[in-house]
């Protein structure tokens, strides 16, 4: 029995290197969401996406965080987060400061990894907010209360957890008050501004970054210059770009693709032998690997506790339990040839794990079918061998310049493989790196792995039909019409994986419905129905099929279908009902049983008993 027989996401070919790519704990992020809960957040509204409905700023902030948490728990579930309201009536924080309320649920620290319960209760926060937390402006001139200051202090204290070397620490500040101390007397205002900015600076000095998510009124834009530009430390260049980017930021937080984020790590260290006496050091990275929904834990269905799987090898003759390593046999020439596990691994070990350069070829020699599995990205390192990077860059440039790739033998996989090293120039767009500079190691198939299918479809001496000039022209027009401009390879989300996450979320949070996931991989119907596109397709079709599209000339299939019919005629040979009654169906061969199944349009799969049972049920009806 397989451990996981219907694991839907497992790659059909288990990657022998898989262990290299398994996750390691990602470097962590610590995040505090600071939400302004002043009455102004409730009274200001924005038109919502639904018509005629207004959403309060508070609602926008809270639902944005709720959405973001739902992605976060899947993408980076090791991160720790805290949610903290300020300008509240009640207070709850370790420092016991007024006007600051740290929201939390049981079985969880103030700052901790997100849990289903946190998300679930946070989803309902608006219903209970007034009762449990309450809104109240916390910046009061007379009492010198300053809830913004307190909020920053509480957040900073929360973020004291974890070392700043290994973790990123961030605050997200949601507010619609662009001038928090605007109503104060001038002296108080100056004082409060100074202390608050100092508090923010202290936090930043500790490696905490503060990100502002301001919410604007429909009639009056949030004025960043009044106070906050100093708090988050924007310089004048960034100032003009800041406000327009805010809307996008909020959207991004809400609409994050559910995608597990893995820490950058070296999958393998490789010694690249360029020639005798010259080896350089490379690091290999797995930049492209099929994403899977995470490992499956088997649970006891009654208690929901994890079960432990134990595997044992049992000798069928004696029932004795066998110990690893167990000998293997290959029947050959009427005898069983024995191999020890050690011998088998010796067979596979034919070289050192190094990558050895064999030579170079023009890129045209690398065919589209020369591929077996995802590539490995190579980047040089001078950590152990000084000079590696220089030699690598020189080769890299030459290969790009001369449009050549390197052929090398790589001993680090089982079996060792011939590989193509294709130099990739850096590609950047919008300041981001789309393709890093380096070489991609493409694993080439051996002759044993390549199948000659073309030959199977040739008819000797008979010329295969080829497209005419006109047909080519029509095809060209079609292709131009259906061109995907700016196509980027990974623009599609994996529909099954997104669906899986949606199911997981619905079950974990007891949601009534699974949120709809869009299948982006389906053709763009609207685009396909544009008249010009329809026309181009129609023209192409016309050029191939002529006026009579149904008239597909069959040149061989008929014979086959006749054969099948002939087979069907055979089913009269036996009186299946009679045989079934007398229990003699088992005397028929599988092929004979199948004739009956074919004739009655029943499934053909399964062992003989299954087939017999299927016939019996069918007759029984």
């Amino acid at each position, binding site marked *: 029995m397989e*451990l996981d027989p219907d694991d839907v996401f497992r790659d059909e070919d288990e990657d022998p290197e898989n262990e290299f790519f398994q996750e390691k704990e990602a470097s962590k992020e610590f995040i505090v969401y600071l939400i302004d809960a002043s009455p102004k957040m409730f009274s200001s509204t924005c038109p919502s996406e639904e018509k005629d409905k207004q959403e309060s700023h508070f609602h926008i902030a809270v639902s944005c965080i709720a959405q973001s948490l739902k992605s976060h728990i*899947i993408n980076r*579930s090791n991160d720790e987060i805290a949610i903290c309201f300020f300008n509240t009536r009640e207070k709850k924080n370790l420092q016991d400061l007024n006007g600051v309320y740290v929201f939390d649920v049981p079985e969880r620290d103030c700052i901790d990894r997100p849990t*289903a319960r946190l998300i679930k209760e946070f989803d309902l926060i608006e219903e209970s907010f007034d009762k449990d937390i309450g809104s109240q402006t916390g910046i009061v001139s007379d009492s010198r209360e300053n809830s913004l200051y307190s909020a920053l202090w509480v957040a900073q204290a929360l973020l004291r957890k974890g070392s700043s070397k290994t973790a990123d620490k961030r605050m997200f500040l949601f507010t619609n008050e662009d001038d928090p101390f605007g109503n104060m007397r001038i002296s108080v205002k100056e004082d409060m501004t100074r202390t608050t900015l100092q508090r923010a600076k202290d936090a930043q000095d500790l490696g905490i970054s503060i990100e502002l998510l301001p919410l604007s009124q429909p009639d009056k834009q949030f004025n960043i210059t009044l106070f906050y530009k100093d708090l988050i430390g924007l310089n004048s260049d960034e100032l003009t770009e800041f406000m327009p980017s805010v809307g996008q930021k909020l959207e991004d937080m809400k609409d994050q693709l559910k*995608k597990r984020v893995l820490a*950058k790590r070296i999958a393998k260290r490789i*010694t690249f032998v*360029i020639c005798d006496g010259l080896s350089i050091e490379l690091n290999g990275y*797995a930049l*492209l690997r099929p994403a899977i929904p*995470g490992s499956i834990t088997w*649970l006891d*269905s009654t208690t*929901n506790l994890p079960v*432990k799987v134990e*595997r044992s090898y*049992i000798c069928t*003759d004696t029932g*004795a339990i*066998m110990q690893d390593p167990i000998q293997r*046999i290959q029947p050959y020439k009427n005898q069983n040839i024995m191999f020890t596990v050690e011998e*088998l691994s010796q067979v596979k070990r034919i070289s*050192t794990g190094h990558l*050895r350069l064999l030579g*170079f070829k023009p890129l045209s020699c690398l065919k*589209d*079918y020369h591929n077996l599995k995802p590539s490995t990205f190579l980047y040089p390192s001078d950590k152990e061998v000084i*000079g590696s*990077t*220089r*030699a690598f*860059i*020189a080769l890299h440039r*030459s*290969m790009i310049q*001369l449009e050549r790739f390197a052929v090398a033998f790589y001993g680090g996989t089982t079996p060792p493989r*011939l590989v193509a090293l294709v130099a990739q120039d850096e590609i950047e767009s919008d300041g981001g*790196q789309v393709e890093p500079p380096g070489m991609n190691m493409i694993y080439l*198939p051996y*002759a044993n*792995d390549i*199948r*000659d299918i*073309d030959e199977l*479809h*040739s008819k*000797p*001496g008979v010329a*295969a039909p080829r497209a005419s000039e006109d047909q*080519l022209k*029509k*095809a060209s027009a079609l*292709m131009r019409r259906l*061109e995907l401009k700016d196509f980027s*390879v990974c623009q599609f989300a994996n529909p*099954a994986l997104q*669906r899986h996450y949606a199911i997981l979320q619905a079950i974990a949070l007891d949601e009534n419905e699974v949120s709809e996931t869009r299948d982006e*991989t389906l*053709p763009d119907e609207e685009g396909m129905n544009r008249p010009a596109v329809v026309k181009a397709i129609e023209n192409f079709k016309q050029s*191939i099929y002529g006026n009579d599209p149904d008239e597909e000339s069959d040149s061989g299939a008929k014979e086959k279908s006749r054969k099948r019919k002939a087979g069907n005629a055979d089913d009269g040979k036996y009186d299946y009902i009679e045989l079934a009654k007398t229990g003699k169906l088992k005397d028929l061969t599988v092929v004979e049983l199948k004739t009956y199944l074919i004739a009655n349009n029943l499934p053909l799969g399964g062992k003989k008993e299954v087939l017999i049972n299927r016939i019996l049920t069918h007759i029984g009806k």
Partner: protein
Amino acid sequence: MHSVLPDVEKACSMLLQKKLIYNKYDEVGIVVFGTEETGNELAREIGGYENVTVLRNIRVVDEVVAEHVKQLPRGTVAGDFLDALIVGMDMLIKMYGNAQKGKKRLCLITNAACPTKDPFEGTKDDQVSTIAMKMAAEGIKMESIVMRSNLNGDAHERVIEENDHLLNLFSSNAIAKTVNVESPLSLLGSLKTRRVAPVTLFRGDLEINPTMKIKVWVYKKVAEERLPTLKMYSDKAPPTDKFAKHEVKIDYDYKVTAESTEVIAPEERIKGFRYGRQVIPISPDQIETLKFKTDKGMKLLGFTEASNILRHYYMKDVNIVVPDPSKEKSVLAVSAIAREMKQINMVAIVRCVWRNGQSNAVVGVLTPNVSERDDTPDSFYFNVLPFAEDVREFPFPSFNKLPSSWKPDEQQQAVADNLVKMLDLAPSAKEEVLKPDLTPNPVLQRFYEYLELKSKSTDAALPPMDETFKRLIEQDPELISNNKSIMDSFRGSFEVKENPKLKKASKRLLRDKPSGSDDEDNRMITYEPNEKKIDVVGDANPIQDFEAMISRRDKTDWSEKAITQMKNLIMKLVENCTDEGDKALECVLALRKGCVLEQEPKQFNEFLNHLFKLCQERKLCHLLEHFTSKKITLIPKSEAADSDVVDENAGDFTVKQEPMLES
């Protein structure tokens, strides 16, 4: 041909060996030509066909033939491949008549450098066309492997030209192909040794839009050939039991906790997935009703510039999409699109579901495969592309931003340009070497060779790597010597040195051993210091733990600790000694290696003497025998300067102890 016959023997015996395993009922005959003698039916019946000998008539493969083919006779006269082909064809026809269409295969291996005889009537061309047409009619496939590495000067250019022309004629009139190979390595790769019945992955529509559909079949173009799945073998049954099956069954037990003996039935389990800190159970019913559902089909999403799809985005092994051979219009449609794609450098993006109810859809790219042969329809290659979730966006520094001392200067760049240009594996399309299509898998080759040896003698040693495969694993010495000055100047321009700041344990890169040598000693030094820190030598993987611990450099006393713990473990193993002798022995070996590396000879030598005494006291003879047989010795001066054991005496302790054992 004589010089390459050993490689021909290898290739053929591989073919036959695999038949013995995978296709036991295949039937094989062998014909050699260019032999002194003549021995074939046609010669007897109608005369002619001299110097063609039937080594074996067609019959089911057996051990003998695999053996036989390894001793091909060395002929003495020029061979006429046409005569040989006719003899072979005649054998096939006499044996099977018109039956077994498409399963009859003629494989010609020759250098095609000897002249063929003129036919009695008509031209050679006519004769070849007739033979080829006959082959096509009989459903005989033919493949010719033409091996020409370094033809001697006496080979006539005109003859070669004529022969190539004749072989081409076969290709256009029969299901025949000619493969030209230039090295023994490609010769081994050129013969398809494993017969796999091609199975379609998908038959259905390639949908341009709902009104325009092209009928296509999809096959795997590339699929890894693996070692055969070896069964596990149990030797527990008593040798007297004649009916013992020697099979091993794998059992899975699902336990509530590691300690408990309570086992739950497989159907009482439920799958759980991690959600934050929790594991959320999802029942099969929930999965079934809620999961992503698919309908079989290939749908076109659009076309795009070929340059938008970088080569390294190909995710898996490759499929081929061929038009349904019975639908002429579909063949035309595929031809039109494929040829135009190639012309204007575009590719198609498609979404595919191969089977109904498949758990996921894939998005992939169709690239053109325009046929070079008139009789083969055009088709597409299909490669799977990654989804957004499959991409890991790790940033890497721009080369431009690296310090200039890390970048090559102009002179170095020129040297590199030269190397990339001159270390050329494909001076012309015809001369390309190391083509994947002609390069065999060395591991498979070695396994079958070993299997054959083992079938003759159970304790046969693993043969060394076949010389032929050197060309795959190492640079071609000829290419190197032709470009010696370039290689030298590259080496001279790019000096590398070990980073002196690193401790010795992590220095491993420059200790490059020649490839092909099984270098066990290297294993220890390749340990990655960054990995999980090991601080205890555990029972499960003591050797790895020990190696990991001893190479730790974060504190000085780790090696000391590792050695002590390893000693304790060995003592434990020896004391509880049951069958663990081997494990103890391995641990002793690891300890010895570690002590040499750490230059702690005393620690080991004292321990070994102590262990020895203990074994004698406890009468653990088998262990002692082991020690002797594995030649475990004390660490002598030559391996560690601090040792007080002289080299000659390193092995002494076993010798001098032995007599006491006997008593």
